[in-house]
């Protein structure tokens, strides 16, 4: 799993941010793979700085990679977003308006995430996690070849894998 690009968008017309981390999947011989299934499991998550932001709503399998014509290649596009909702505290900012700050005081949620290739099955459960402290997917039964892990961090004005 090789990082390819980070893209930040304004989730118009909603107010907030949307960030996408794009990856290519490379086989053990260094060849870029074309159309493979992937899945993600969140094994832990935490809120910081008094935020009540929810855990990621989705930890479903990625049934197929997405096409990138310029690269003539398939990409895994992982989408993160926060949009303003009544009751959310603090309210997420419009993309980039906090200068893409990644200072400790700007971290709202951080989740540990594992990736597997070759299967879209992450062990469930499907649907919305029950809130902060729950897990999405089941690391014990998720199928596929483990290919990487990262922190999935939601900042005030953007998201990032780090």
């Amino acid at each position, binding site marked *: 799993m090789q990082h390819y690009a980070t893209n930040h968008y304004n989730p118009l*017309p909603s107010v907030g941010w949307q960030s996408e981390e794009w990856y290519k999947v490379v086989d053990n011989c260094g060849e870029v793979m074309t159309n493979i299934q992937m899945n993600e499991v969140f094994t832990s998550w935490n809120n910081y700085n008094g935020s009540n932001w929810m855990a990621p709503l989705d930890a479903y399998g990625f049934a197929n990679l997405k096409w990138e014509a*310029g*690269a003539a290649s398939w990409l895994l596009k992982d989408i993160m977003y926060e949009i303003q909702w009544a009751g959310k505290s603090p309210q997420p900012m419009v993309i980039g308006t906090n200068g893409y700050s990644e200072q400790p005081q700007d971290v709202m949620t951080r989740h540990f995430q594992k990736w597997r290739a070759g299967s879209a099955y992450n062990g469930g459960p499907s649907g*919305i996690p029950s809130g902060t402290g729950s897990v999405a997917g089941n690391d014990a039964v998720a199928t596929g070849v483990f290919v990487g892990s990262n922190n999935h961090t939601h900042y005030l004005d953007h998201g990032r894998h780090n």
Partner: protein
Amino acid sequence: MTKRNITLTAQSRVMLSCVVATFASYSVSYAESSPLQRLCNDSEKIIIADVVNADTTGGQRQATLKIARVLKGDLKPGANIKVSYTPEDRASGAPVFAQERGVFFLGAEESGVTQTIAPPTGGLGWRAAYLPASQSRLPRNMSAQTDILTKVIGELAARIEEAPRDNYAIDRFRSVVSPSDSHLVQELSREWANSADPQLVSTGLGLLIAGGDSDALVRVLAELPTLAKVPSDGIVGPLGNFKGTDERSISALGQIATSSIAPLSWRKWATYSLYVTHQRTALAYLDKLLDDSDQFIASTAVAGFSAYVTGMRVSGAPASTGPTLSEVLSRRDVSSFPKNVDAETKRFIHFGRFRDEGDAATHVAYWHRWYAMWKETSGQ
């Protein structure tokens, strides 16, 4: 007989390591036609439309669209149409974006509801169902004789020209539009590459590089400090898929790969292109990249030397089933290595990531030695 058995064993081991990592992949070939071409062909109707309302819950959702223009099919501008879509993020409460104009690709109609065909780009909620179109700008130079693919590209381009800061529209344009799709892509690429807007320049140069233009690659090197900072990076994709083998191209790729100011992603994928094209002029850069602190770059540099000495063919379009897959896998068939590759060198031929740090150090040291000797004997 014994010799044959030994050969097959080694061959099987090498191939198996690739096959294990590639199961379930290489199942679809898109090499024959571009994704946008396929999307246009597969759609019964193509419209430019605004959403009137849309469901926010449930797996399969419905929306009502007001048709602005019709690119394919017998629908009427100004009419409403009910469509269904399946968002990728199926969780209840995922946002519905209801105010953007889009290009919608439509399939069969059933009980008054027409299924949308999602572009292969991904997206958040409702946005995954269409590609962004312009609210106010009409596509340029279209006529009744213009082919549908060009019309769609014109609609997508109009959105970018209307809002050059709309990274989302730009990224989706780049995701589906290939240089070979239409003469319009060539026109737009050159125009954008020479515009005053760095974002458009990045997109234009990226499209030119994707079409094999080595001048555009050289220009990226010259304007690297500016282009590396644009929010929507049009360069990294084409950089990793460049197949040009002329000296200027290899030199530009090499300088980008070894640059101290290029983004890591550019350096990674420029190195990948150096590996894939494996020209002798790339060896000096690969030698430097062997010591890179990024393991992907270092291992790809080793693969570059390995590809060079084995004379493996330059990679083409994404691998698919059939002969192309066989070719990809047989690159690691040790029995196919040229006879003039000596036994010691064969031991250090390596593709893919290293087992551990020791494995990395051994291979890096060998290829440094090999390159020094090659330089001496070849007079380079």
